[in-house]
């Protein structure tokens, strides 16, 4: 153990602007420490005291300091730097990953400086106040404003900055947990003290099993069962029996329905009923797989990483994207990731700080953190983040949601995998540490006000370059046929990965073989650790050497940790001693499934009281600036959405790149004409009033995004992500059941099967006696092949003089719409798709696009026709004239509703004047009408028949939409 180290501290030259320092000054001020002098940011490294000064100077010059922009300072071991009392040092807590330090350590070898593994190299960052400041204030405020105390510690630079001590090795040996004689109360208590998150019934089932076996369980056996039976891994609610009772607004029972398995009888049943041959893998692997061509499949998965992101937005979102990428790598024999998606749900931006529940972060800080997390992980992986969204709602203040999705390409012959007894178990990738112990069980529990202090171990820090190396090795090894099966280490770590892979045959694992980040882990911690960037491979012994060589070239850890057997048991050893022995049947088949009661009360919702007047340009500005409609370009431009060269329909399009697209289209293979369209839909505000309608709307939105972008509606596959409150409560489970029913109905109506999904069911926040659930949130992601990406139309207008056509009729139901929120209208009837007509409309539009009749096309969603029209102009620098009197409608609608209602299944389409007739011929049975034209002048003109309602310049609209960003 070392007591001291060299400190190398680097700061930008004082003549250079320092945006990080400026942001730090602002963050300190936001938390009540207003300073008059600037803050300068810096970075620092601890280097081993065994180096001499000249070596440290060499390292600084050749490796650490930028020769033009930075100045450096070297502080000898044991010395205290000048001015330290006005400088903060922020560094990661012991055990938290420090990739910069790992890179520095590796690079020291290039300079012929071998540093022992026990010698510390660590990184940190500094904030120096360039003027007078009270040290105590700086430390107190800075510790919160500039650091995340969950994973970082803050010191004054005047204090000794010592390397973290290396923990001692822990001589752990087999430990039993006395269970056989325990009373039910003791069982419950045990579940709680060991943080197993198992119910009383589950603990009793385990007790009964071990009574039969005639022995006490070991700690690692209980941990394994807790992980495998967790809500996160087993989806007990969605796959369990549910009794649904629906009542009307007066409490009269309308209907009852019993499900033996909610998911199987709804979402999954629809897929089974259709069983399309173009879906190659559904609901059985880490991702669903559908066909892009006859030979190439597309693997898709969307995950949530909500609880970790609430505690550490940056790390949580980064590891969320890292995790879903591994899902794709672990699908079949491994798919090659080529696109990523993200969507965030956070609280309102104008939330006063005093309204924050205790222990939670401000929504803006959460948002900045999750954007940066996705950016830094996705960009480093070289996977374009192409599609996403942002939802603001007060229901997400304490429980933000972070969705991350990934798509990969996979040859058809590699969609199936099979573990054979005798294959060795190889852990590939990062080392195992105490990271995220109990992540699987933690995310199955509600957050509470002490979450940010007690659950620090549940936070995970990502290291994207390790994952990139794993990706490189895995795809090379796949193509050389070096392994027979693969899966990712996600929730539950090795326990879930090995447990699932060995489910059909059996496995034996020697836990002491796993490479560790640091000593001192007990065997059960190694088994359930959720350290990131690890995959598990099943390798036929004859290929082992080649695989290990390949991994060595790419500097990726690859270690044999066990063997797959044919005894259908899971056997765990620690230095040769058996510490766990469970039959696979019990592990995977014995979780008790209680019937849960679900209640859903239908609300009485009247007609939407739209004002008669159109509201003028002023109201359109307001709608465009609403968080649901405001430009997200500032987010999208931080993601490398062009990497790999295949992003042909971009998230922002047009001459200045300012027009938001609908679905994105990406070509996984640059040498082929085909691509994949990706879209998503979400409608939590509607779902809060009617979970069925909100879910159906989300699905319609996802599909229409994909169709508008050029995707084939007859080959569209869907993914579901259910994020709900605590579904042990009947009302939460009631809305969930209705959402699942909507999935079934919509999937069959649209002919779009669900191929994969995920749920996150305990998004509640407890403070005192109050429990607050998020709004019922279903994210639907739609993906579809595009036969020839050259035919995709895009949203920007093409040419002045072209005709604008609204396809699909507008109706007056405007509950939970942007306009109704801005107008403060009472809750009213919500829009819902018409399952009879919507599929034929999508089909007709697709035919029109395939025939080349569509010049540009945009779906109508949040903000309705008004926003869609403005957005089509943004991408073109052209204007347009809209005549509201000619818009196709269903029922009576005033001008305001025509402009802003959010009826689903509608599009605004640009068609050349002499092709309007051909276009219309495809829509014989569908509502459509010409309602405007493209103008050369960059102006939006809105008419009601012969009367002009208002006109405004494109610049003014864009200004409103970008909100000064």
């Amino acid at each position: 153990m070392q007591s001291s180290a060299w400190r190398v501290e680097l700061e930008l030259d004082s003549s250079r602007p320092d945006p990080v320092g400026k942001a730090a000054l602002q963050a300190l001020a936001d938390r009540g420490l207003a300073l008059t002098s600037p803050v300068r940011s810096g970075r620092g490294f601890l280097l081993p005291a065994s180096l001499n000064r000249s070596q440290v100077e060499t390292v600084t010059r050749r490796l650490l300091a930028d020769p033009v922009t930075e100045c450096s300072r070297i502080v000898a071991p044991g010395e205290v730097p000048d001015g330290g009392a006005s400088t903060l040092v922020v560094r990661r807590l012991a055990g938290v990953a420090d990739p910069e330090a790992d890179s520095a350590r590796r690079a020291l070898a290039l300079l012929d400086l071998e540093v022992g593994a026990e010698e510390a190299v660590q990184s940190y960052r500094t904030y120096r106040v360039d003027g007078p400041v009270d040290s105590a204030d700086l430390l107190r405020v800075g510790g919160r404003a500039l650091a995340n105390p969950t994973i970082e510690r803050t010191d004054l630079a005047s204090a000794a900055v010592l390397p973290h001590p290396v923990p001692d090795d822990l001589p752990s040996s087999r430990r039993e947990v006395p269970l056989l004689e325990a009373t039910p109360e003791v069982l419950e208590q045990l579940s709680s003290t060991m943080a197993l998150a198992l119910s009383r019934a589950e603990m009793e089932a385990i007790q009964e099993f071990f009574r039969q076996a005639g022995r006490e369980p070991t700690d690692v056996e209980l941990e394994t069962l807790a992980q495998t039976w967790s809500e996160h891994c087993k989806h007990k609610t969605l796959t369990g029996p549910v009794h649904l009772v629906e009542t009307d607004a007066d409490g009269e029972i309308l209907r009852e329905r019993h499900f033996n398995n909610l998911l199987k009888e709804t979402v999954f049943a629809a897929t089974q009923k259709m069983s399309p041959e173009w879906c190659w893998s559904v609901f059985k692997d880490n991702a669903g797989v559908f066909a892009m061509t006859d030979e190439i499949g597309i693997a898709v998965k969307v995950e949530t990483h909500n609880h970790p992101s609430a505690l550490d937005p940056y790390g949580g979102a980064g590891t969320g994207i890292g995790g879903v990428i591994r899902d794709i790598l672990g699908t079949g024999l491994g798919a090659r990731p080529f696109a990523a998606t993200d969507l965030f749900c956070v609280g309102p931006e104008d939330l006063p700080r005093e309204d924050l529940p205790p222990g939670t972060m401000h929504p803006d800080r959460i948002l900045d953190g999750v954007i940066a997390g996705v950016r830094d992980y996705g960009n480093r992986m070289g996977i374009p983040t192409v599609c996403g969204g942002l939802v603001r709602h007060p229901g997400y203040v304490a429980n933000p949601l972070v969705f991350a999705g990934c798509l990969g390409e996979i040859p058809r012959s590699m969609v199936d995998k099979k573990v054979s007894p005798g294959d060795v178990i190889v852990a590939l990738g990062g080392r195992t540490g105490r990271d995220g112990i109990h992540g699987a069980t933690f995310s199955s529990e509600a957050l509470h006000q002490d979450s940010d202090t007690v659950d620090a171990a549940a936070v995970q820090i990502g290291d994207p370059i390790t994952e990139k190396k794993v990706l490189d090795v895995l795809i090379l090894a796949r193509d050389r046929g070096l392994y027979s099966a693969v899966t990712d280490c996600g929730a539950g770590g090795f326990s879930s990965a090995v447990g699932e892979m060995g489910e059909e045959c059996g496995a034996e694992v020697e836990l002491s073989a796993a490479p560790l980040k640091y000593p001192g882990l007990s065997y059960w911690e190694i088994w359930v650790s959720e350290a990131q960037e690890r995959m598990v491979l099943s390798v036929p012994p004859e290929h082992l050497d080649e695989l290990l060589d390949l991994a060595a070239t790419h500097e990726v850890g690859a270690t044999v940790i066990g063997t797959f057997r044919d005894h259908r048991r899971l056997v765990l050893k620690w230095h040769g001693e058996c510490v766990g022995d469970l039959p696979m049947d019990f592990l995977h088949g014995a979780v008790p499934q209680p019937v849960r009661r679900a209640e859903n009360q239908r609300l009485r919702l009247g007609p939407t009281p739209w004002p008669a007047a159109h509201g003028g340009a002023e109201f359109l500005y307001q709608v465009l600036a609403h968080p649901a409609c405001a430009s997200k370009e500032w987010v999208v431009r931080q993601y490398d959405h062009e990497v790999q060269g295949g992003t042909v329909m971009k998230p922002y399009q047009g001459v200045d790149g300012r027009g938001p697209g609908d679905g994105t289209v990406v070509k996984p293979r640059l040498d082929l004409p085909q691509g994949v369209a990706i879209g998503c839909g979400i409608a939590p505000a509607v779902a809060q009033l009617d979970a069925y309608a909100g879910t159906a709307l989300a699905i319609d939105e996802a599909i229409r995004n994909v169709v508008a972008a050029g995707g084939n509606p007859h080959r569209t596959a869907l993914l579901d992500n259910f994020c709900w409150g605590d579904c042990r409560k009947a009302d939460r489970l009631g809305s969930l059941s209705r959402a699942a029913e909507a999935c079934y109905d919509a999937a069959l109506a649209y002919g779009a099967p669900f191929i994969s999904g995920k749920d996150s069911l305990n998004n509640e926040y407890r403070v005192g006696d109050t429990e607050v659930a998020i709004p019922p949130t279903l994210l639907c992601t739609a993906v579809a092949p595009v036969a020839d990406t050259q035919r995709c139309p895009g949203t920007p207008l093409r040419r002045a003089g072209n005709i604008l056509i609204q396809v699909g009729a507008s109706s007056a139901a405007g509950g939970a719409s942007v306009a109704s929120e801005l107008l403060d209208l009472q809750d009213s009837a919500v829009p819902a798709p018409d399952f009879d007509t919507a599929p034929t409309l999508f089909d007709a539009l697709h035919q029109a696009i395939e025939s080349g009749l569509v010049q540009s096309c945009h779906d109508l969603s949040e903000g309705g026709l008004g926003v869609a029209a403005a957005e089509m102009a943004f991408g073109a620098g052209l204007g347009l004239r809209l005549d509201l009197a000619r818009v196709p409608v269903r029922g009576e609608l005033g001008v305001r509703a025509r402009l802003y209602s959010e009826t689903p299944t509608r599009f605004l389409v640009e068609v050349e004047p002499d092709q309007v007739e051909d276009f219309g011929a495809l829509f014989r049975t569908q509502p459509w009408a010409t309602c405007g034209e493209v103008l050369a002048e960059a102006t939006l003109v809105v008419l009601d028949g012969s009367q002009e309602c208002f006109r405004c310049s494109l610049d003014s609209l864009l200004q409103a939409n970008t909100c000064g960003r």
Partner: protein
Amino acid sequence: MKARVLQLFAAGINCDRELRHMFEVAGAEVEEAHVRELMKQPQRVLDYDLFAIPGGFTYGDDLGAGRILALEVECFLLEQLQQLHAQGGSVFGVCNGFQVLVKCGLLPGVAGIPLSLTWNDTHRFECRWSRLLVEPTLGHVLPAGSLLPAPSAHAEGKIVLAQEDGFERLQQAGCVALRYADVHGTPTRAYPDCPNGSEGAIAGLVSPSGRILGLMPHPERNLGLQSLPDRGAGAWGTGEEGIAFYRGLLAPYQAPCTA
């Protein structure tokens, strides 16, 4: 004979697919080598016409963009790359590859003009299309004065010069290859036409010989009309410029068609 390209691979390189695709479309034969393999046989570099370093985040850019790979190149490959250059070969780097060429000292390739690449003025990663004005120093690759549209995608792409007259000295030495320009073709440092605030609006540098070249934006992602943000409406060129750039790089090494 096709031009022979050796493309470097290392931990964190992630623009290798599109670069390889573009080189092949432009008529080259491409092989890839992992830096750890190449370190063992650095002479291999001499078997090729052009050595290319693709974009990415090598080693996470953990110690500054491209820093560690630059040190590896400096320690193990620099001599061979200089020899390749001396015998008429080319060295080329895009984005992170450009940062590596600058930080290992191969660019600008003349002594006494210290420069570096640092954080964009916006202090964040920027992914947006740029127009690059071709300087006469690059006239052998693309017509001088023409515009090359290409997406920028970087966080540390701002060229900073240690000396006040650094830009003039670079220009006199014939090292300024590409500059960010507005829609009219006028060089500009103003955001967003210039995504990073680069001094002299420099987007790419070339050695006085014209054969060591690096740039921040990615012409290999300009694969034709459908790659363009406006899909061919005219604001972003004809869709041919990206391929023409790579053809120009390879031209000296392509034997004329003898059929």
